[in-house]
């Protein structure tokens, strides 16, 4: 319907027009003030915060056991975020309080802790990094309708409903970059050594990599899985070296990377070694020069120029005395997803917080990992390629 402004303007008294103009100006001024007060991020996750008191949250994390180092790094990132959120007054007068529990990398322990946590007044729960535990814990959180946020835990069966979130992009979304790199390097054949008892590495090797390799004209000569807890890898590395592939993929958890790389080099392998997010300065340090030239795809580049990433690296280093790894960045961004959710909800009601978090995920936000975009409740990233020069991690671009 055509709006006849001429009729409206002629028909209104002069005083009413003045009131209208003043009112419009006041509203514009208020809008300007409101936008100046909201957090400076690329999204509009800036609901006003009507929260007060303590917002209790529980973290059920692998702090000891096989993936303890991953859990500890994640926890450190979470602690930094918790501190910054409270210090900045992002939640108004409310203070975020995260209670940290240890699953000891045991699924039964994780389930027990989760069952206890959902029956408390915890507004939300952060889940374990291990996929094996996450698939056990996720249904508990979903059925109890408690917002549950995971990092790592890249297998299926983790983001299973509207109350489960993941702030780590599953590796299949940035492994195409790894496959393309191998093709660019003229790699024609690869073999894999992988941990077949961890769902993430098993699915990556058996389901994600084969089609990617095929798309890039790379033949897989063999895939050799070992049980978690294997101590000597000589039999596997000898088998792979005997095949003489152009490159070897090592898809393992954090502590296994260096022993396998050392075993490969000791067995005489001189070709390219590549892997996943479990590679990194901390896990390759033991292999030292034997890991020189190893390449991996990851979701975090600590040398990125992205402002939030740079600030996170500086703040983390100041707080913990060492540079952050990707797990810390993921934990940091996970806490901020919750914080944005709380702010959008202006409440600690679990249903409202879930809706607030879903809103934040839909809009996306800037985090330590970079600009974050979600598909539903699950993060998506293109990732970065990194390499190890024998002493430190470098982005792949600087090596070309």
């Amino acid at each position, binding site marked *: 319907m055509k709006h006849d402004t001429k009729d409206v303007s002629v028909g209104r008294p002069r005083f009413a027009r003045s009131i209208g103009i003043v009112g419009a100006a006041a509203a514009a001024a208020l809008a300007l003030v409101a936008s100046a007060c909201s957090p400076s991020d690329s999204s509009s996750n800036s609901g006003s915060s009507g929260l007060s008191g303590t917002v209790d949250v529980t973290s059920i994390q692998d702090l000891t*056991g096989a993936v*303890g180092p991953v859990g500890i790094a994640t926890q450190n990132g979470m602690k930094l975020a918790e501190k910054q959120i409270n210090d900045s007054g992002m939640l108004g007068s409310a203070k975020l309080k995260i209670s940290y529990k240890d699953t000891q990398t045991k699924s039964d322990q994780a389930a027990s802790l989760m069952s206890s946590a959902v029956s408390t007044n915890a507004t939300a729960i952060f889940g374990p990094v291990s996929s094996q535990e996450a698939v056990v814990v996720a249904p508990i959180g979903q059925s109890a309708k408690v917002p549950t946020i995971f990092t790592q835990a890249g297998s299926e069966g983790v983001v299973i409903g509207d109350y489960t979130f993941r702030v780590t992009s599953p590796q299949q979304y940035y492994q195409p970059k790894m496959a393309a790199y191998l093709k660019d390097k003229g790699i024609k054949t690869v073999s894999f050594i992988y941990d077949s008892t961890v769902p993430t590495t098993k699915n990556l090797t058996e389901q994600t990599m084969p089609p990617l390799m095929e798309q890039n004209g790379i033949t897989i000569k063999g895939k050799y899985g070992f049980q978690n807890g294997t*101590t000597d890898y*000589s*039999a596997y590395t*000898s*088998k792979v070296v005997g095949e003489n592939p152009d490159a070897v993929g090592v898809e393992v958890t954090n502590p296994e990377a260096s022993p396998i790389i050392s075993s490969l080099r000791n067995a005489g392998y001189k070709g390219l070694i590549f892997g996943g997010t479990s590679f990194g300065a901390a896990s390759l340090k033991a292999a030292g020069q034997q890991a020189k030239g190893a390449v991996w795809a990851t979701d975090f580049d600590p040398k990125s120029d992205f402002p939030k990433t740079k600030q996170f690296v500086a703040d983390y280093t100041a707080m913990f005395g060492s540079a952050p790894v990707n797990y810390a960045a993921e934990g940091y961004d996970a806490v901020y997803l919750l914080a944005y959710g709380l702010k959008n909800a202006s409440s600690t009601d679990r249903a409202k917080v879930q809706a607030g978090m879903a809103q934040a995920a839909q809009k996306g936000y800037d985090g330590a990992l970079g600009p974050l975009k979600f598909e539903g409740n699950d993060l998506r990233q293109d990732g970065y390629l990194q390499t190890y020069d024998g002493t430190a991690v470098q982005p792949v671009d600087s090596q070309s």
Partner: protein
Amino acid sequence: MIQVIADSLSLGSVYVLFALGLSLSWSVLNLLNLAYGAQFMLGAYFAYVIGSHVDWPLLVVLPAVMLIVAATSVVTDVLVFRRLRTMAGTPVESELSMLVASIGLAAVAVTLVQHQTQGESKFVPRSVFQVKTLSFGDKLHLTNMQLIMLIVTVLLTIALAVAVKWTRFGRAMRGVAVDPATCELLGVNSNRLFSTTIAISGALAGLAGVLLAIHLNYVDSTMGDPLLTKAFAIIIIGGVGSILGAAVGGYLLAFAEVVIVAYGPANYRDAIAFVVILVVLLLRPSGLFARQRWERA
């Protein structure tokens, strides 16, 4: 095939080197020490700590670590096991209570190391020992540490077997395990003998910890647990009570595992290996080298 044999000998040496001390305490003293995996881990951990602070070579670090772990073993025997042996009414009660106590001791050691390392994996610095690859054409690659482990394992196995069977000390150890009261009457101080045997077992755990930490290139608070399971298996295959049997069992198990990886479905390595163990036990329930009936010593 030659690389398969070399890998079998290497893996077998890993298993047997780890199991020797456990075999000594279990086979001879009837002490099923579930803290043995933690003692092994402590050996690896102390090697990392010493290597991180001083530039000592392996020949100095190794005896130092063996001494430290032996000392911790003696302390736990004096403070814990000896009291339990004294308080127990029957030998079965004594064995069970020491078994349970060893589980607790292991948990304490693992937790302490986890706390110190923040759960991160560490490694023994290369200043302690530089692992080098010895290549024999394209067909065979071995490291200097794998050769050392093989030689040490064989020599230690023979030395222990001879000591337990033919020395006065060995006879006393076996006697105390069967009937400590009679041994006391014959002038054998059973408590001191027990502590000495525990110390030797601890020293062997420390030795294995250092060498395997260098070979595997990592030190982790939970590194003893998977090897403990394998050690039980090979002691049972070989026959409880036989140190030589445990050594043969270890190399047999290693050969089975390596062959499966080299020629079969690698993912099923552990499953198939334990099927082999099951078959051996069905044919020889007491183990390969056990006597017709299971008797201690």
